């Protein structure tokens, strides 16, 4: 699992590459836990190369969501593969998180 951070003005884009499971979730958790992430207005998560997510990966996003909301930082997922979106859907997380199809829609969200 590789996480690449691309800052640009008030937006931080995180590119996820690989499989997010109970072994690799710590990599993402470390990135989301950085205090200066709350200085951005938006955190966009590019899921194009995220090929797998387990409950441990979902748990990382869930555990930071309230902190982001309290700091008025919007968390937006985009470019999500159908099989990964299906996992969010099965738990009903698609209704609680902002997931859009494209980068353009993520920027506009």
């Amino acid at each position, binding site marked *: 699992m590789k996480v690449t951070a691309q800052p640009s003005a008030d937006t931080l884009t995180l590119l996820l590459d690989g*499989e997010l*499971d*109970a*072994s690799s979730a710590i990599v993402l958790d470390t990135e989301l836990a950085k205090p200066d992430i709350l200085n951005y207005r938006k955190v966009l998560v590019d899921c194009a190369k995220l090929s*797998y997510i*387990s*409950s*441990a990966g*979902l*748990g*990382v996003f*869930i*555990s*930071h*969501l*309230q*902190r982001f909301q309290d700091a008025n930082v919007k968390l937006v997922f985009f470019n999500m593969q*159908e*099989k990964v979106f*299906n*996992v969010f859907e*099965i*738990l*009903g*997380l698609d209704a*609680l998180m902002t997931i859009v199809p494209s980068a353009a829609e993520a920027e506009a969200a």
Partner: protein
Amino acid sequence: MKSSLRIACSRSHLQEVRDFVRTYLMGLDLPEITINQVVLAIDEVVANFIIHANGEDETQFLDLELAVAQHELNVEIADHGDTIFLPGAHQSPDLRAYIKEGRKGGMGMALVNRLMDRVEFFTRGNHTVCHLSKHLA
């Protein structure tokens, strides 16, 4: 058609488990979403055994066996550790509360129960065994 894998209780073996299950299922001409759902259910149970039942003790091991007959997939995950691990009755996680609390865990078994047709944990001697099944259309 049967296939089996033995792994030590370390979360670093989860990738190996998923690759093994994917390779097995690839030969069955299933939709990608179905393959991912089965892989996920097995990954969640194996992660629970490794982390919660065995405390990531690498001297302990798990045996995984997959079998398909008449469009029915049967999965057995046998924990050879000495801790009996029987997850409680399945409850739907309150995700809004989880978000508010900043909670990381508690969704794995809910996922497994929604992904598979049957989920059973039972004891064999002083070990725990999990049996999962799913009808493959």
